[in-house]
């Protein structure tokens, strides 16, 4: 990429729009934008958001979207966004299903999120800001011509394609959502300049089923897709060990110009859709690690997006507040502010946790911890052994 990046004028950017909450399928759908509202309030309550951090995105243009999506798919999404659309007409595009129902304004809501992640990447690559966050982003399951797993357009791929074209940057994409980051992986499967690394629960029992060790990229991109499928019921220590043992050597060897980290927080024990057993500890430690690597390897250029997270009460607000605090380099108090707890406890179906980090003894240890840890260590070794550019 080109030399002479200017010194950042600002440090951390928070990309947000009230209209992000329009990306909503149905009242009882697990992908619930209320989590954004709750998280934003928590961040504000802690005094961690000022006018200078805030950026309003514009929707991604058709040109932006067409870098990664099929034009016929775009047309289908636009037609499905009309109030008169018949859900049965869109099955071939993965739309109108129980997972990804159609809703009026779907195209606008989805392209606004893509615009948000593109803006976050642009702010960082242009040197205006060092780090940026779009917590509405992270829709990693969307494919070139198919909606999948609650994702219509792939905001991450749109942002990566933008920085590839404008800056010729080498991008590392890190996906620590509990589900395999399949959409992003397949979209850059043959590109040696986009290294995708996904840590996830193995596909044996979890959507989308892919993300095997053997998926390593194709053609010139061989070796530039990395998968670390971890066992169901993996806990904090084994998860963090896998993340560290892979990211440190691999990123050092790859030498990225930009780190883009997807922070889905559905590996938590409370998450209703997955079978992992982590606590909020990993949502403090993972951004800390990718933040540090960004400073060591690419002058701090680091973009964060959200992703999955289906316990919107007990997990998402704390996890993503910790993420923004890390991006800001701000200290968090030990306890979640009482005002926020009182405001949301009334609506919550569960008792809300009062500390950012889950108490150490919150969950009983998983009986097969030793075997799970051993299996994960073997998986990490095999993932590293098959990464050609490491050796």
């Amino acid at each position, binding site marked *: 990429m080109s030399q002479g990046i200017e010194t950042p004028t600002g440090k951390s950017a928070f990309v947000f729009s009230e209209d992000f909450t329009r990306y909503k399928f149905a009242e009882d759908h697990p992908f619930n934008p209320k989590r954004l509202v709750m998280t934003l309030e928590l961040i504000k309550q802690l005094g961690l958001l000022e006018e200078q951090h805030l950026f309003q995105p514009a929707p991604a243009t058709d040109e932006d979207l067409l870098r990664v999506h099929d034009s016929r798919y775009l047309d289908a999404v636009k037609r499905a966004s009309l109030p008169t659309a018949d859900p049965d007409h869109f099955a071939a595009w993965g739309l109108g*299903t129980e997972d990804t129902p159609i809703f009026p304004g779907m195209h606008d809501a989805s392209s606004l999120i893509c615009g948000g992640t593109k803006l976050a990447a642009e702010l960082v690559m242009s040197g205006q800001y060092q780090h940026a966050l779009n917590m509405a982003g992270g829709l990693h399951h969307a494919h070139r011509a198919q909606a999948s797993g*609650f994702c219509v357009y792939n905001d991450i791929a749109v942002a990566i394609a933008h920085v590839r074209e404008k800056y010729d940057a080498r991008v590392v994409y890190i996906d620590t959502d509990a589900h395999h980051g399949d959409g992003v992986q397949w979209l850059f499967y043959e590109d040696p300049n986009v290294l995708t690394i996904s840590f996830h629960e193995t596909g*044996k029992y979890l959507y*989308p089923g892919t993300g095997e060790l053997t998926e390593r990229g194709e053609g010139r991109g061989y070796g530039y897709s990395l998968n670390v499928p971890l066992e*169901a*019921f993996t806990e904090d220590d084994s998860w963090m060990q896998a993340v560290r043992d892979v990211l440190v050597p691999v990123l050092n060897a790859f030498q990225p110009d930009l780190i883009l980290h997807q922070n889905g927080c559905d590996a938590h024990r409370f998450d*209703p859709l997955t*079978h992992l057993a982590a606590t909020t500890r990993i949502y403090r430690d993972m951004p800390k690690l990718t933040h540090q690597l960004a400073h060591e390897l690419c002058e701090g250029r680091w973009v964060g997006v959200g992703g999955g997270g289906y316990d919107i009460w007990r997990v998402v607000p704390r996890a993503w507040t910790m993420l923004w605090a890390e991006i800001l380099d701000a200290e968090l108090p030990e306890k979640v502010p009482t005002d926020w707890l009182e405001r949301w406890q009334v609506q919550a179906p569960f008792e809300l946790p009062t500390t950012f980090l889950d108490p150490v003894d919150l969950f009983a240890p998983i*009986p097969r911890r030793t075997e799970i840890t051993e299996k994960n260590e073997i998986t990490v070794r095999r993932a590293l052994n098959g990464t050609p550019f490491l050796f």
Partner: protein
Amino acid sequence: MLVESIMTPDVLSVSPDATVQEALEITKKHRIRHLPVLLGGKLTGLISDRDLRDAAHAPETRVEQWMVRDVITCHPLDFVEDAAATIYRNRVGCLPVVSKGQVVGIVSERDILNNLVEMMGVNSPTTRVEVEVPDKPGMLAEIADLLRARRLNASTVMVFPSTTEGYKTLVFRVGTMDPRRFIHDIQNAGYSVVQHPSALDDGEV
């Protein structure tokens, strides 16, 4: 699925007069393990890389001297599972595919395993749901009805004998990220969904 759809159609072969050295070179160059031996287009034997290694001390001898003569073969219209059973029972590594007296292909252990891997693999984004049902008629339809009611699409369905006597295991790969309601429907209908082996206890995951 039929043998003709998974076999290798362009078969490399040797004549019985070929030398061991010549045959060895073919197997090395093309990285293959088995060479049918043909005389006037008819199959007269089969020689494997193992036979050839045994004969390597006599590189100028003829293949005919070392080949297996009673070759087990199959037909292009045989089912893949029958070919698999033949390979397994006779402990051989491949079957030449013979039709009208001519060798039209060859199918190896690898081809069959590859076919199985593809059949059992994940070809679209799906969640795996495993159900135990009584071993009696109508059970698959029962569960399939629940899928239809939830507008869910299955990409693969497998039926296995269960480890519990009198039961069968149905494995669905379903195109949804959130199988909770489907699982709930199955349990409500009185069937049990097989939990992950590391699960602490039923339901709590």
